[in-house]
């Protein structure tokens, strides 16, 4: 049963991937930036540029270019970066693991901060705590990533010297970048958790739990939270896609070797092979994220059936 379900979802995922690559490919084709010229260099002659274009197959009609691209991808070849002239799989591959790590840690912080504040706010709706949580939510959502990142560095790395000034390697390096992303993104989780918790807390089974003698902790954490968790889980699914397409500003503030900086550079220099590869990575992440969310939902809420 679950096998067939997974099979169907993955098939849909492949179709989605095809769709995304087609659209991105067309857009990149439409861009006026000329990769052949950029490769051939600023002093190259027109003939030299034309030769480069031929070498890259850029002189072919769009659909042929796309089919070539697809053929290569099926053979596991993502092509070579225009600017760096290196296998894209090497470039992107090296950054996937750090990106995944940052994603996991950031989502962890988002959940920690967002869900906690959402719960607290929902326990005292429209009172001071709730209002404060709301204001903080909006500050977080509106704050520029760069400023938040630098401030955290100033305070926790420069002033207190608790954390390194960015970099990658030991687990301690991940704390500040993940914390800044967590601060920024937790607002969404906070609001969603709050409204969902408000709903759940008025349900009859919460009263039942209290009638059993369950304390506030047990009532909220065990009985209410699990029922309020579905939208949060769905959001995590979407978030995975967001993080896997890279978070350039935070990466660059903290010197995190994630996918975002690579993507940003590639976008700036219209390095199509890299853009295509990262787009595929994030599309896969979105498919997997949503699938994961749906599967987690099965465990959170036993009433849900696979569709």
């Amino acid at each position, binding site marked *: 049963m679950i096998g067939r379900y997974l099979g169907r979802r993955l098939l849909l995922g492949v179709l989605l991937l095809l769709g995304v690559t087609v659209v991105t490919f067309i857009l990149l084709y439409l861009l006026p930036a000329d990769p052949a010229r950029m490769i051939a260099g600023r002093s190259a002659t027109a*003939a030299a540029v034309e030769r480069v274009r031929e070498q890259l197959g850029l002189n072919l009609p769009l659909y042929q270019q796309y089919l070539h691209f697809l053929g290569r991808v099926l053979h596991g070849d993502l092509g070579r970066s225009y600017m760096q002239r290196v296998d894209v799989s090497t470039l992107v591959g090296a950054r996937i693991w*750090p990106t995944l790590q940052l994603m996991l840690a950031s989502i962890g912080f988002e959940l920690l901060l967002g869900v906690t504040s959402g719960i607290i706010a929902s326990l005292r709706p429209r009172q001071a705590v709730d209002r404060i949580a709301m204001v903080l939510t909006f500050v977080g959502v509106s704050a520029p990533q760069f400023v938040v990142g630098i401030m955290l*560095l100033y305070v926790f790395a420069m002033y207190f010297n608790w954390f390194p000034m960015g970099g990658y390697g030991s687990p301690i390096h991940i704390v500040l970048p993940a914390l800044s992303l967590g601060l920024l993104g937790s607002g969404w989780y906070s609001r969603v958790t709050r409204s969902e918790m408000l709903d759940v807390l008025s349900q009859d089974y919460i009263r039942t739990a209290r009638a059993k003698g369950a304390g506030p902790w047990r009532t909220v954490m065990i009985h209410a939270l699990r029922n309020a968790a579905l939208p949060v889980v769905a959001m995590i699914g979407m978030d995975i896609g967001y993080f896997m397409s890279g978070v350039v500003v935070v990466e660059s503030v903290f010197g995190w*070797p994630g996918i975002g900086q690579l993507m940003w550079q590639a976008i700036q220099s*219209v390095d199509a092979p890299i853009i295509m590869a990262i787009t595929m990575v994030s599309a896969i992440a979105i498919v997997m994220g949503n699938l994961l969310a749906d599967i987690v939902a099965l465990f959170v809420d036993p009433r849900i059936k696979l569709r």
Partner: protein
Amino acid sequence: LLTGFGAAAAAPKRGGTMTVSYQNDVSTLDPAIGYDWQNWPMMRVLFSRLLTYKPGTTDLTTDLAQSYTVSPDGKTYIFKLRPRAKFGNGDSLTADAVKYSYERVVDPKMASPGQAFFHSIKGYDEMVAGKATHLSGVTVVDPLTVKVELSQPDATILQVLAMNFGDIVDPAVAKKYGKDFARHPMGSGPFMLKEWVPGQKLVFVRNPYYFEKGLPYLDKVVFDIGQDPLVALLRLQRGEVDLLGDGIPPAKFVEVTHNPKWKSQVVVGHPLETSYLTMNTQMKPFDDVRVRRAVNMAVNKKHIVRLINGRGHPTDQVLPPGMPGYDKNYKGYRYDLKKAKALMKAAGYANGVSTELYVYNTDPNPRIAQAIQADLGHIGIKVALRSLGQAQVISAGGTPKTAPMVWSGGMAWVDDFPDPSDFYGPILGCGSAVKGGWNWAWYCNKDIDALAAKADTLAQPNEVQERLALWRKVFGAAMHDAPWVPVFNEVQYTMHSKRVAADPANAFSDPGVFPFNYARIYATDGK
């Protein structure tokens, strides 16, 4: 030309490590491909070449070549190689390697951006067209002697051979890795690449076989990749970084340079650079020279330099100071609004005109463009800005009748080699006023082109003064047509930690953008 590293301490000592910060990953270390200001100085210490510059000057000197001779017709060069030069892996460096390296750049399969620089070597055209697999103009006379024959005299050929495109690669390694040589470079420079973690760091270590005894001083140079320049500065101030590869971030410039604590660690560079505004001579209203002159008179260069906190010097001519051929006595268009307005009126634009200015979207370029916009507003030119990514601006500039004005900042012309010809052909010559070219003014004056061509044939050492005079004439004439507004020559600032020092006289390999000569920087005790 850089100054700084003022704290030249006691005698340089051997050993130690230095950390250099960069935001962007190094794109490539293949000298046939690498062509940006970031990888340029790196390849300069990974490889060596026949000729190089005396540290910190524009004067050529020998490097791998022990000596060389030029034939009287200026078409044949014979180089004698150092006898004991070796690559980092111990392979001997012979004349074959030189020939291989040059052919590698010209080989069309390589698609090297440096290819065209070698155009004057005999056999170039055949090889580029794919008719020959070897450069007939480069011959191995004996293992330590290379002969380079030109199809016509070329005053810049020695400069070209001193560029990174003239770097000598280890043929065995290059063949082994093919296209991936970029990640496994092997040359005969003072350092060699030990480790490259994409997006994180590169580690250079001493090349044990380097021919110049005593160099490099440092055992190891670590390039720390991926962090914002602002954070890199904080790390330098904390002692975690020894050199800011990207320079002092503009946002911190005033704070740092005015602080006595840090002032002494600031390094100032004067790259051979000119930041300019191009006017598309094929588009209205700039097809009228009066308008172009009016613009030249309306741009308040002093104000612009103040906007960028004084990190530049206003200029009125194409060539930067320090470049041979720079004309100290040149009087360009002076700031004169009255005259400018009169010119506009004369050109028939008394009621004003609208146009667009393309600008690279990173600070401070949009700000400079806004200042220009305000300035031109005073003479009735209404400018709309198009602030875009670098690739798009370059592409718009190189497309006919697309970008009426382009502000060159951030992509500005820095010399490939310190010769005036580099500031004419690629950016003002008729040959580059084509689709995809860098002549964004689309300026083409056949007479001036002829003068320039003539200048480049004057290759004999005794013709230098005549040649420079000719170049001064070329640029003077071009500015008479006013396709550009030269605005300022950039001054660049970076910082080093107290743990490293260098003799200011030779801390820099050549006058590019922060072209640190890593081989001559040494560790101190950190005071």
